[in-house]
């Protein structure tokens, strides 16, 4: 039975949180590493941009995984929350464009305002998540999917018709203050939060809801409360991702936050394995780099001239085909509900045995 399986997986997930992930230590360790990364990449705009896109996708996938993977609810409006974060953070930054803090160097005061804008974006997305989640998460089944889908579309249409948000043309001129360091600090935070939730008693309640909602309720789990909380956390990080996105993409417009974007994130989560944080990370990395990799492959195959121009067009169909092949070969996702450190040692041991 499914409940029996959950009983075996859940304590395992709780036990694997390394002791180092407790306390403030990881934050102190992450900051200099990120600073170094930013410094190393300062002369390479392409790598910076690609890594930033990748980071945003990781944040989106890991945060969606809290709802879709750990809690077992099906949300397909993540791009809507991202849009809320992107537009509000962008709007705040545009408002504060001409202001600086007198006793700080300008670059630093820009970062302070950037953080402020991110917080505004994240909190407003979380508020939207609360408002959307509260009524719809009381229900079971597919209702959440329909409501989140509707929410995403509503946000897009509202933005398209609001003068302050630049309507269909989009919002441009947002100060481009984001860097790899800031994006990956967001990645770091979302992973930290996701892993700590997974290992906590809160997380065990989420796993219980995922496996069997009726049984969880019978055991005294406040299912609606837990679902709404995980949904709000997930929306908050989607808002942060949107805010980051708005600060390195020169123009944000409603076309970037369509249903297609939501589905891309769902695909990342499913491909990585529902419930696996490292799976979501790896899938996000893989799916962000795949189109660019195909581009490199095709341009190296075809010389300049007509061939190289035609192949960029077939890049996306190839991407789709690869995705289908991957899902057929591993329907449970790359890691299932496990994390990379559960999977790799066993796989390694099996391989060794096979060769010897």
């Amino acid at each position: 039975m499914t409940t029996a399986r959950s009983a075996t997986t859940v304590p395992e997930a709780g036990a694997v949180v390394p002791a180092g992930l407790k306390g403030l230590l990881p934050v102190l360790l992450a900051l200099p590493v990120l600073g170094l990364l930013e410094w190393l990449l300062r002369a390479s705009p392409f790598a910076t941009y690609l890594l930033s896109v990748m980071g945003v996708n990781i944040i989106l996938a890991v945060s969606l995984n809290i709802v879709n993977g750990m809690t077992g609810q099906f949300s397909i409006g993540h791009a809507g929350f991202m849009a809320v974060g992107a537009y509000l953070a962008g709007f705040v930054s545009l408002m504060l464009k001409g202001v600086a803090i007198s006793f700080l160097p300008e670059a630093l005061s820009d970062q302070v305002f950037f953080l402020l804008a991110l917080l505004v974006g994240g909190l407003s997305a979380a508020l939207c998540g609360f408002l959307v989640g509260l009524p719809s998460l009381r229900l079971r089944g597919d209702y959440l999917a329909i409501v989140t889908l509707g929410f995403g579309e509503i946000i897009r249409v509202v933005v398209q018709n609001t003068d302050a948000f630049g309507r269909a043309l989009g919002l441009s001129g947002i100060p481009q203050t984001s860097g790899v360091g800031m994006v990956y600090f967001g990645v770091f935070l979302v992973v930290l939060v996701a892993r700590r939730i997974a290992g906590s008693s809160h997380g065990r309640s989420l796993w219980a809801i995922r496996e069997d909602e009726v049984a969880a309720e019978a055991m005294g789990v406040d299912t609606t409360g837990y679902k709404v909380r995980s949904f709000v956390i997930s929306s908050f990080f989607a808002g942060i991702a949107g805010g980051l996105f708005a600060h390195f993409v020169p123009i944000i417009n409603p076309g970037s936050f369509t249903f297609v974007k939501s589905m891309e994130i769902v695909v990342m989560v499913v491909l990585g394995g529902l419930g696996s944080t490292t799976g979501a990370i790896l899938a996000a990395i893989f799916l962000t780099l795949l189109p660019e990799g195909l581009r490199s492959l095709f341009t190296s195959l075809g010389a300049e001239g007509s061939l190289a121009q035609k192949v960029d067009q077939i890049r996306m169909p190839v991407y789709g085909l690869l995705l289908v092949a991957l899902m057929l070969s591993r329907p449970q996702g790359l890691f299932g509900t496990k994390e990379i450190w559960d999977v790799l040692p066993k796989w390694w041991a099996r391989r060794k045995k096979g060769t010897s």
Partner: protein
Amino acid sequence: MRRLVPMLLAALAALAAGCEKKTQPAPSGESGAPTATAGQSAGSAAPEGSDTILLGEVGALTGGQATFGISTRNGVELALKEANAAGGVKGKKVAVRVYDDQSKPEEAALAVTRLITQDKVVLILGEVASSSSLAMAEKAQAANVPMITPSSTNPAVTEKGENIFRVCFIDPFQGFVMAKFAHDNLKMNKVAVLQDNKSAYSIGLADVFTRKFTEMGGKITGTESYSQGDTDYRAQLTAIKKTQPDGIYVPGYYSEVGVIARQARELGLKVPLMGGDGWDSEKLYELGSSAIEGSYFSNHYSPDNPDPRVQKFIADYKAAYGGVPDALAALGYDAARVAVEALKRAPDTSSASLREAIAQTKDFPGVAGTVSLDEKRNAVKSAVVLKVADGKATYVTTISP
């Protein structure tokens, strides 16, 4: 926690108290300066020793605007083929690398960054959609690589900086074209305006039309508004009918214009309607059918233009890709030819001299009008006026600025 909150509050207060106006208005320009020089050296260093000059193009080859991107790419390809057949530029072949942006601005920004830093192109062409062009312009300007957009008409695109050019006219120009045509060719004195309040494009055209037409001595009898998506325009049309205009200027999109035309005829308004390139769609003739007959609109180019240059382009295009080229193909062709001309005139392929050469483009004979670039890097060029007759648009005249 109890001690943390006041501390946080104090920190916030200190930050808020420290807020002031920035002394330098452009912090991004300051931080952008080192990358700009890096981009410049990279851009000029690449082509040394190789026998091809590489251009970059970003277009929507997939996604919602795929036909725009593919037409533009075909136009660019045709222009470069011709240039290479004629001996290339300074003995070198010109090649273009085209990247798809899936009709999304963030993908356009990624593609253009890749073109600049990985492929080290000397010049960038694209995009059609103004939002994608704006994203690209930001990156191209920061990296100091010249960029020519074939068909983004939003004025904000070239305002991004001195590296960004365009070979099409900007939105407000069409208002002027129609005002001149209505006054000089159609001999109208009283015109009513019906504008789409939801579209910046429509309002821009209507404002310029009103101003220019009044300057020429005409009279605007009334201005009415509708919103995109409306289906009933009888109230506005009745108000317009009372003022007895000689014509109505409706700078909207084809989907509404078709319905407006029908309802105007139902109410007995027989005067011609006039509009801009938002009318340019087969759907217009379907929606408007007989009601839209005898109306006029301005556009970038017409395949009926008897100019031999245009007819040769159409014949070549048909031979290469089949089908009559649309305005986007013509503008892509022009953009690539302006780029090739600039490459020929520039002493080297560094971005500074290329930018200089493009800026000097004057009276360039393009298929979509003669291109001269003004000091704002916008093309000052003629537009064509088309008349709807027998369910299609026929060429009437060319209006120069």
